[in-house]
């Protein structure tokens, strides 16, 4: 936005022909240049200091306190293993080649279940948001389901479907679909009416309006719903894996945790809990946070003055 002929004195006495186009173009280019804000991404070093250093410090602090508690012998060593013995559990599992297997069993289940929930939850959310009757009929139930702990679905799912993968997916769906649908509903409810009016005058009505205006406008709320949907998927899956034990189900992180309990191996329990936590955080950091930030940044919603 660099202009070559700005600073034409706007106070100069305008004759009748003063609105002549060249003059106006220069004036306008000057105004545009004066009023345009430039925004860019912060440098990498700043990102490191502001975003990476604080959580790293927190983790180190937790490890230090943990080790101090072990040294102080606040409780029996089988109740509180040292960080080093949890670490050797990691190394063991790694050298035996089972570590990635545990993780993959759970992660592949979780992601597939989440994708299924996405496919079901999205049209469901659209229906609830756009059709008054559907909203009145199932809207409250849908929000209510969010507060029902999905572990409650494990016993009925086992009875209905048996101890197999479909039972796991059923529990994931019951946990994640309401979050995704509700996220979309609240995203659509928060679309400014002005966008809908503008869309209608441009001819975006009905399905075209939904596709071109409503869905993109609701995207931030929808993404928040997806993020929560993933958290619920993961939680539901872990609940199902801890409760349902069967050779057919393989060894996921939940089963690893439960096996650690039956073996009275606290370091294995700690290992499982850590892995469950790390996977949950990693999926969020690698997929959802970048997606959310990209959407917000491109709409100018992350710009700080």
């Amino acid at each position, binding site marked *: 936005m660099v202009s070559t002929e700005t600073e034409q004195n706007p106070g100069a006495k305008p004759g009748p*022909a003063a609105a002549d186009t060249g003059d106006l173009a220069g004036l306008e280019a000057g105004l545009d240049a004066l009023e*345009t*804000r*430039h925004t860019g991404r912060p440098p990498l070093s700043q990102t490191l200091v502001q975003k990476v250093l604080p959580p790293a410090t927190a983790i180190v602090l937790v490890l230090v306190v943990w080790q101090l508690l072990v040294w102080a012998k606040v409780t029996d060593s089988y109740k509180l293993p040292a960080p080093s013995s949890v670490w050797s559990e990691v190394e063991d599992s790694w050298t035996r080649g089972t570590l990635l297997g545990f993780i993959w069993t759970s992660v592949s289940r979780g992601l597939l279940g989440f994708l299924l929930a996405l496919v079901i939850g999205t049209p469901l959310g659209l229906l609830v948001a756009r059709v008054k009757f559907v909203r009145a009929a199932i809207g409250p139930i849908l929000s209510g389901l969010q507060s029902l702990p999905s572990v409650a679905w494990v016993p009925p799912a086992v009875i209905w479907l048996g101890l197999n993968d479909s039972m796991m997916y059923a529990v994931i769906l019951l946990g994640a679909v309401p979050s995704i649908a509700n996220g979309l509903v609240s995203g659509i409810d928060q679309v400014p009416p002005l966008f809908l*009016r503008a869309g209608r*005058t441009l*001819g*975006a009505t009905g399905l075209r309006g939904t596709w071109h205006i409503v869905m993109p406008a609701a995207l931030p709320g929808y993404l928040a719903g997806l993020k929560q949907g993933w958290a619920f998927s993961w939680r539901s899956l872990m609940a199902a894996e801890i409760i349902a034990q069967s050779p057919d189900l393989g060894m996921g992180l939940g089963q690893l945790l439960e096996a650690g309990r039956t073996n009275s191996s606290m370091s294995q329990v700690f290992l499982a809990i850590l892995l469950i936590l790390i996977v949950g955080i990693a999926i969020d950091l690698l997929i959802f946070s970048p997606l959310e930030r990209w959407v917000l940044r491109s709409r*100018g919603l992350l710009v700080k003055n």
Partner: protein
Amino acid sequence: MATTIAKAADGVDARDYAARITHVSKSFDAPGGRNTVLDDITLDVAPGEFVTLLGASGCGKSTLLNLVAGLDLPTAGTISTQGRPALMFQEHALFPWLTAGKNIELALKLRGVPKAGRRQAAEELLELVRLAGAHGKRVHELSGGMRQRVALARALAQDSRLLLMDEPFAALDAITRDVLHDELTRIWRETQVSVLFVTHNVREAVRLAQRVVLLSSRPGRVAREWTVDIAQPRRIEDAAVAELSVEITEQLRGEIRRHGQH
């Protein structure tokens, strides 16, 4: 009781108006009875004409514009327009998930312009509002005046014969507004589009219009009309503009004063 949209046969329309508003009334149900917002409005906008609708708060000028835009239906009377009118709001109403250029291309797409021609057409419209090179800019990267110019380009992308403007410059600073007045006059003369422009700013009304229509308030009725015979390009500080503005302001104040005399 209906809003009819005249279909142009082969792009030729023999109508002698861009919008015809005939005995239009609009009322809403309100606590304590019906609330009449517009009462028996009759008004024509000729092809290529620039008309400003002027009035104080509560005169229903935005309601009338919504009726002409087809966003709402009149309680009585008929409104007929040449095709679907384009509408510009006080807020730019650009979609923040699209770039400036893509906003215009969406309007083209919804109008049925084939994909191949859209980019080129959008660039040309941006050039018309002197924003060549802004195609890839995000809405939040543009200044208020630039946003309204993109909104104008998007409205023009509808290729409507009638452009409705609902106080489009009210939220801008005085310098930018002044420049946009010049721009709008230039573009109106270049495109020969008909404009129905709503404002509560008397000088703005006189600066821009060929005809100023004053609405009374509660209910809105056509109180008086002025034909503005001042040659374009005008400036808002021209003596002739000021003179007519004084006259219209007197009348407007009279209309407002009546409401305090109950």
